[in-house]
């Protein structure tokens, strides 16, 4: 049995172990979408609506799925005497596959909602472009761009989840405590460093608004200094997201290479 064969066997095992959780999540997402469509039709709403909630839910789902399933999948793979390197490759393919499927379903859900309600549902990419360059973005994005953008962001979320899980897995008790408190420490540090610029967003310690604010500014910054056209901006954002994911994967590989089976 050569390595490619083993990689696909581990991939099959990983996707199998995710299928129930993914089915439950997608079922819930389907009912939420159906409820939204039904409500909008009942109230005979018109105009544009946002569709970013589903994308954000997908991002959170894949992030948590990868974190929660790592130990089980890793141990099961090791019990079959598969090398960590093969597990690593299989996990990457599984994550890419799931990211693509979720992005595709996200896109499909938006189109179905449009069909059912007659309203246009703006994806998260639309919203980012609005915040970066106003309304004149129509000609720059199509279904392919949205699909690529969402897939790359889901991939980034998944690899970030994996990296966090790997850090926890390799850490000793003290390091785990430090890791657990690191978001609070990071938040406090940001609060101190960006006090003046973030103050309006940090009223009532609204972390979500502060994060959106930082994100928006990050996108505006890239738009202003790198390329001044939106199409370049979209691709740069996708490439940056892939680059960040690859960096996460590189660190994951270093951590998993010598990870003990616990």
């Amino acid at each position, binding site marked *: *049995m*050569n*390595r490619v064969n*083993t990689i696909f*066997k581990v991939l*099959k*095992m990983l996707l199998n*172990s995710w299928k129930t959780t993914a089915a439950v999540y997608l079922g819930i997402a389907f009912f939420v979408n159906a409820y939204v469509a039904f409500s909008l039709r009942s109230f005979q709403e018109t105009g544009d609506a946002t569709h970013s909630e589903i994308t954000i839910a997908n991002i959170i789902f894949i992030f948590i799925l990868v974190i929660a399933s790592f130990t*089980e999948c890793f*141990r*099961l793979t*090791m*019990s*079959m*005497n*598969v*090398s*960590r*390197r*093969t597990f690593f490759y299989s996990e990457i393919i599984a994550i890419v596959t799931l990211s693509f499927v979720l992005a595709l379903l996200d896109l499909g859900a938006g189109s179905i909602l449009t069909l059912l309600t007659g309203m246009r549902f703006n994806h998260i990419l639309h919203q980012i472009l609005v915040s970066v360059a106003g309304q004149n973005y129509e000609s720059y994005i199509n279904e392919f761009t949205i699909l690529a953008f969402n897939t790359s962001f889901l991939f980034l979320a998944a690899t970030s989840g994996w990296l966090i899980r790997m850090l926890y897995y390799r850490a000793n008790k003290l390091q785990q405590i430090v890791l657990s408190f690191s978001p609070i420490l990071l938040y406090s540090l940001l609060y101190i460093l960006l006090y003046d610029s973030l103050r309006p967003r940090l009223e009532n310690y609204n972390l979500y608004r502060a994060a959106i604010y930082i994100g928006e500014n990050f996108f505006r910054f890239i738009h202003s200094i790198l390329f001044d056209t939106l199409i370049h901006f979209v691709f740069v954002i996708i490439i940056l997201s892939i680059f960040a994911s690859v960096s996460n994967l590189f660190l994951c590989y270093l951590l998993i*290479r*010598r990870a*003990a*089976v616990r």
Partner: protein
Amino acid sequence: MNLIELNNISKYFGKTKAIDRVNLTLAPSKIYGLLGRNGAGKTTLLNIITNRIYPDQGIVKIEGKNVVLNDQILRNVFYMTEKNLFHEGYSLKELLYLCKDFYPSADLSYAHTLAAKFRLNLKQKIGGLSMGYLSIFKAIMALCSNAPILILDEPVSGLDANHRELLYKEILEIYAAKAQTIIISTHLIEEIAALLEEVIIIDHGKLLLQESSEMLLQKAWIVTGEISKVRSFAKSMRVLNAKTLGQREEVLLFGLISQKDLIAGKNSGLDFAMASLQKLFIGLTENTEVNHE
């Protein structure tokens, strides 16, 4: 040709030296017993052989190739760990199919036959198994995998006497039929002694000995008699332990005794009995060695 080679393997856990410069070579188609006291380093050594953990020093080769991240080599090994690595939600059947996926030559009909012999219901979830049945299931997986190298870490943990007997019988049958290389790590030395062709004893992470069990038993003698005569006989030999009762002494000797010495000893009134593997193991690992010179 050596099937498994361990060259100068050392492993630390923090400041504790779990394995200390172990050199070992295992030949194909033999049943090896890996014996050692609790914490001697048996499981660590097996984990290193199967690349579950990395040694701090040294190299492990199987069929002449380094095992590190080597799927081709690892495919030839089935390692039954004492610890359960399967998630509780899996059914036994699912796990057997998984085993078949990764070990294409696995014989699932044999697994079903074994399950019936052990009265194990394969429709159960792994989380619902008792400790004994969990060991049985893992052993069934190992035996049906048909991997050329089987490593069984505490395979009879939690098993009752009947199931232990049955498992030993099955191990012997599969070995007779397929001549796999089998490494068994266990504490139940007395029970397993008859199965073993070669014995490896480790203590405090160090390799104490590796020898064929036949040769080993030829070297292990219990000699009883008058104190002075026993001591005189044992003068130039390795005395693993000694028990004195009044004017009599019983010693456990480790070393070959020539036919001539044996006859002379018997003629001088000494009693000779061959020691069991367990007695020898205790003698070798208990630090009760006596110098009668």
